[in-house]
């Protein structure tokens, strides 16, 4: 970061940190819900199928897309955090790595979204 006086102070690093935190919290709460809905397989096949059916409606299809977007971002940015911590070169090129995170995120979402939304909206 040439000329930057701080790694934080509303630079890229701070926004990546905010996004990392937000996505971590969102995924944590989803995990609590997701274990509970899966637990319905122990109640009865009907109960599970009924509730999992809710995930297949268009609105939930969009919510799921958001959650997948969140976890993929959190995972890629987590790798950036790890490498910045342990690897001198990565530490000096944090901003370049932040770009890499977003580019890889776009590629992953481009692979995921058409297929998932096709299942949700295409009705197959």
């Amino acid at each position, binding site marked *: 970061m040439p000329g930057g006086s701080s*790694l934080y102070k509303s630079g890229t690093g701070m926004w990546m940190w905010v996004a990392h*935190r937000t996505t*971590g*919290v969102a*995924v*944590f709460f989803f*995990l*609590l819900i997701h*274990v*509970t809905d*899966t*637990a319905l*397989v*122990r109640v*009865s*096949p*009907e109960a*599970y*199928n009924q509730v*999992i059916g809710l*995930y*297949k409606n268009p609105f939930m*299809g969009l919510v*799921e897309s958001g959650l*997948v977007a969140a*976890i993929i971002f959190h*995972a890629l940015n*987590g*790798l950036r*955090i*790890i490498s*910045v*911590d342990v690897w*001198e070169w990565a*530490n*000096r090129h944090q901003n370049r790595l932040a770009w890499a995170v977003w580019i890889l995120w776009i590629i992953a979402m481009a*692979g*995921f979204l058409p*297929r*998932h939304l096709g*299942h*949700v909206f295409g*009705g*197959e």
Partner: protein
Amino acid sequence: MSAPAVVPPRFRRPPHSRIHTEKWAWLFMRASGALLIVLIFTHLFVNLMTGNGISAIDFGFVAGKWANPLWKWWDAAMLVLAMIHGTNGMRLLVNDYARTRWVRRTLKSALAAAFTLVVVLGSLVIFTFDPCPEGAAATDLNAAVCASITHTATTSEAP
């Protein structure tokens, strides 16, 4: 004066404990994160990208996956690692934002309770799963899995 050199970050949370809990927590976040990438990305790919994705998920789908012990252990590992990682992450947020000791304690107790409940419930569900419960409509079950189970049952009966 020349620009200050960028010093590699050192861990800097107030050291509350004697046994370097925070250091291990820091390390765990990184180690579990690396493992979770493999566990979660595979989970998402197999469940949402292959076959008919979300449309194909129902009781029979779960029965099919958990017929294989590999997927049981895969899901159990994901459950435990993600819950420790996520709960510890939430603990860091509580440390950062909760202002009074009372709020901090209450939130941490809630986290501990949620952690215990979800890990116990999730593990029980995985390892006590019955793919062919009695009285269920045959159309809701995984025919192949149930056929292989009755098959083993009858063959093991015949001595």
